[in-house]
């Protein structure tokens, strides 16, 4: 949601007379300015382990950073939000100095060559829907600290050093996005926006080198919903106690008392997601009824999945219900996984179709007694727009870089985008069309084309851009 607000404010945040961009010569050495750390700087280490160490260091330095009104946190937030020119350079030290050790560790984490999420995957697989995220360090703070450091360098007139810090932030964002973390999937996209805001400020700096190649060589899509979907599948397995064993041996698996209590709670929560509310104390009763009502469908689903007639007949009703719920959930996740890999319009169309096919409300014939599907849909519906919105923004920033290169070559902004010959221009990823562009009185308007299936998360972006005014000649 935060990212939506941020997108909405992007147009409003631009000055009336346009955002300044400085002309830039082509990069002599593309490795000098990169937006992700290269293999050359990579260190053999684990980003998750380093992240936890950084968290510990920061907690030692600023013990109450999560609790109550905290002056350090407030100052840090304002260093990210305030217009750069309004920031007194002296304000950076009180925020960055106490966090110096943590920043050093986050910098190393951004260059680490691997991320070991096995603690998180184990936990999701075991605890399911009730899982916290014990394997996830506080990436948000790490990314923001590096972003503040970038702003400090930019304020001091050193855009290259600012970009180096932004590259480290972007590296952490990518790592975070790969985590099998089903609930925090929009956070990396939102933080990328913050980082790209600073990158835009860099583009205005007269000494900012061309970022065209740095942007072109970013992996695309930059962020994907793959980690979140994988996490959801693990969570589904963890939510349905014994489901993996039941899949392998539906007849012989028996749930113990502890597993039954977990199933009661899971059934209660999953039912709430499906719009079916009842008292937790009566969960076992409702569960029994639901299993009984859907038993024939559960056995039919087992037959379609290839279990033999004998196994289907001998499977206890509870196991058949769990298996049915698991298979129905996996069916939906599989459909979504294939849909989300498509380009924006067909992906949106398919996600809407999945949503429509499984409405909230009372169970329908064929649906599992333990309603896993609606929960999964609720978690994955927002996995499309933020990622495509981010792709759009990256494409627009690369177009702005092409404008900077053109301005360096010709001394002015082009009358139309086709006049740019110095580099290739990207298309708008979500629509697959070229960006709209107009030049009016020295101000360029760069606009994103419409998509066939609008979504609240996929805002249209408009950039108003101008070149710096030439210095006035003294009489």
């Amino acid at each position: 949601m935060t990212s939506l607000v941020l997108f909405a404010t992007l147009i409003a945040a631009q000055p009336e007379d346009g955002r300044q961009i400085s002309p830039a010569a082509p990069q002599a050495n593309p490795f000098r300015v990169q937006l992700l750390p290269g293999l050359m700087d990579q260190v053999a280490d684990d980003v998750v382990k380093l992240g936890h160490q950084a968290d510990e260091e920061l907690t030692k330095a600023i013990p109450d950073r999560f609790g109550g009104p905290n002056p350090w946190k407030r100052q840090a937030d304002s260093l990210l939000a305030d217009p750069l020119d309004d920031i007194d350079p002296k304000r950076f030290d009180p925020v960055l100095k106490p966090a110096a050790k943590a920043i050093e560790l986050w910098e190393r984490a951004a260059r680490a060559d691997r991320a070991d999420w096995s603690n998180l995957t184990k936990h999701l697989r075991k605890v399911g829907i009730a899982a916290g995220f014990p394997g996830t360090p506080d990436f948000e703070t790490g990314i923001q600290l590096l972003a503040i450091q970038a702003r400090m360098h930019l304020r001091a007139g050193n855009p290259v050093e600012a970009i180096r810090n932004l590259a480290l932030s972007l590296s952490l964002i990518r790592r975070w996005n790969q985590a099998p973390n089903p609930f925090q999937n929009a956070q990396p996209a939102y933080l990328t926006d913050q980082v790209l805001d600073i990158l835009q400020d860099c583009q205005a700096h007269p000494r900012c080198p061309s970022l065209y190649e740095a942007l072109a060589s970013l992996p695309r899509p930059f962020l994907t919903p793959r980690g979140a979907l994988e996490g959801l599948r693990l969570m589904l397995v963890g939510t349905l106690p014994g489901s993996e064993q039941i899949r392998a041996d539906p007849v012989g698996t028996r749930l113990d008392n502890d597993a039954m209590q977990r199933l009661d709670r899971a059934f209660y929560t999953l039912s709430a997601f499906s719009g079916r509310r009842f008292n937790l104390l009566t969960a076992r009763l409702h569960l029994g009824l639901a299993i009984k009502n859907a038993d024939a469908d559960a056995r039919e689903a087992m037959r379609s999945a290839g279990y033999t007639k004998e196994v289907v007949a001998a499977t206890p009703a509870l196991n058949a219900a769990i298996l049915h719920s698991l298979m129905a959930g996996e069916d939906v996740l599989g459909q979504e996984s294939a849909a989300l890999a498509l380009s924006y319009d067909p992906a949106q169309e398919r996600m809407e179709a999945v949503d429509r096919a499984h409405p909230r409300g009372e169970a329908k014939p064929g649906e599992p007694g333990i309603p896993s599907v609606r929960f999964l849909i609720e978690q994955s519906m927002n996995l499309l727009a933020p990622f495509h919105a981010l792709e759009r923004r990256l494409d627009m920033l690369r177009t702005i870089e092409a404008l900077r290169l053109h301005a360096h070559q010709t001394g002015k902004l082009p009358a139309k985008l086709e006049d740019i010959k110095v580099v290739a221009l990207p298309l708008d990823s979500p629509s697959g069309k070229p960006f709209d562009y107009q030049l009016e009185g020295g101000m360029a308007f760069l606009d994103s084309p419409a998509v066939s299936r609008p979504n609240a998360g996929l805002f249209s972006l408009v950039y108003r851009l101008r070149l710096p005014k030439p210095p006035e000649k003294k009489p």
Partner: protein
Amino acid sequence: MSLSCRVGVLLLLFASLSAAETVSLAVSPAPPPRNLYRWQLLPGLLVQKPGDAIEAYRKVHAAIKEVEPDQAAFARLTEEMDKLRMARLEDVDRVRVKEIVEQFKKPLGLVEQAARCEQANWDFLVERLRKSGISTLLPEIQEMREIVPLLAMQARLHLLEDRPEEAVKVVATGLSLARHMDECPTLIGHLVAIALARISLDMLADCTSHPKCPSLYGPLTDLPRPFLSPRKGYEGERISCYGTVPGLAKIAANPAGTELDAETVATIIRLFRGLSDDERPLTQFRIVDRYTLGLAMQKSMKAAQEAMRTAGYDEETIKKTPAINAGLLYGVLQYEEGLGRMAAAAMLPYPQASAQLDEINKTFPFKRPRGAKPDEPPFPLARMLLPAGDKVLLADLRLQRRIDLLRVAEGLRQHAAQAGKWPEKLADVKVVPLPDDPATGKPFAYTRDGDTITLDAPAPKRGISSDHTLTVTLTLRKPEEKKPEEKKP
């Protein structure tokens, strides 16, 4: 195998990746699978286990050695397996395939586990590249290559014994192996990964031809895109350049303050003598001594200083930098410019990447006709070490086209399941969105002749014309006629 032997290997790989091809399959109409995860083409997180895949593949290699310690005998077996892999499925000697699979049961079990490892850790190779540059030995790559023919045998046996789901699981193992190989920080690793993926996709084409195989459109769509990326390979090439020339990393960090000792200078001269197999450097360095080297450096000193200026070194540093350091730095800056542009171009869509590479070839001195130019670096690292970016690009394109063509074919099987026949034209397929040809951004060429359709990916703009075409011909199997039920007496 060392990186310096890579020219030969690369040529072989390019040759194997660049033949014009036609794939002909008899297929049945097929709906999508009920549960995509059962037919997933990469092992999901649910079936992954903590651990390092590269270490695990080394164990697979050791297990293969246990079964067949004689290298020559294994090479002969690989040849035989290649023949069995490429023959039409119905012509394959099932007994022999089964014999091979039984013989290598243990390594095949281990490779399945390796492919499900969460990490592929190539750190050790990065360190090797830093130390030895283009002399780095890469035995692991060869070891991983020898696994795939065994997987192909296993997949074929499953198909011959009517188990398409198991065969697809073997394909997933092969594709995971390719992805693990692609993490290798060398372009040769990337090209080998493409070759492995290609063999796995051939196995997949076999699977889609099985009457019980559902449409694999969804699992193919779900694969990461691009499936393999040269990004790490380009990064590794850069590290390898620094590892090749002793002292280069120190010079780049501190050009004015780094002093090369006599031994290092002698090593550098020997190295250039060995590497400079093109006209000018070779004639220059065959009689190389300090005098010739000094002369070459003097000639290019101004250009070297200008290159340092453009790279952002301050005037004080430029003035104090010794000539040999400036000469080496000039060479590496030119190399990095070329490599960086190639790497950035490789990430663009094919038509744009191809145009960028044309531009790079026009602009850069390393691609100019041979012959001395006074302002060229005395150490022409760009000429000597830059990879053939256009060939890598074509190999990437071929793999992506293969995946996309298979996706289209599977979309068509899904359409046939719904409509009962092939569509008149591709645009008639509404059941799923079909991908365009990545070479052109337009739909693949489609023709229909009765029950047979042909999907065509013509030669792209760049490259060796007809050697880069890919054609898939699909013939719709007639539904088996039901035998009239025998009346019970």
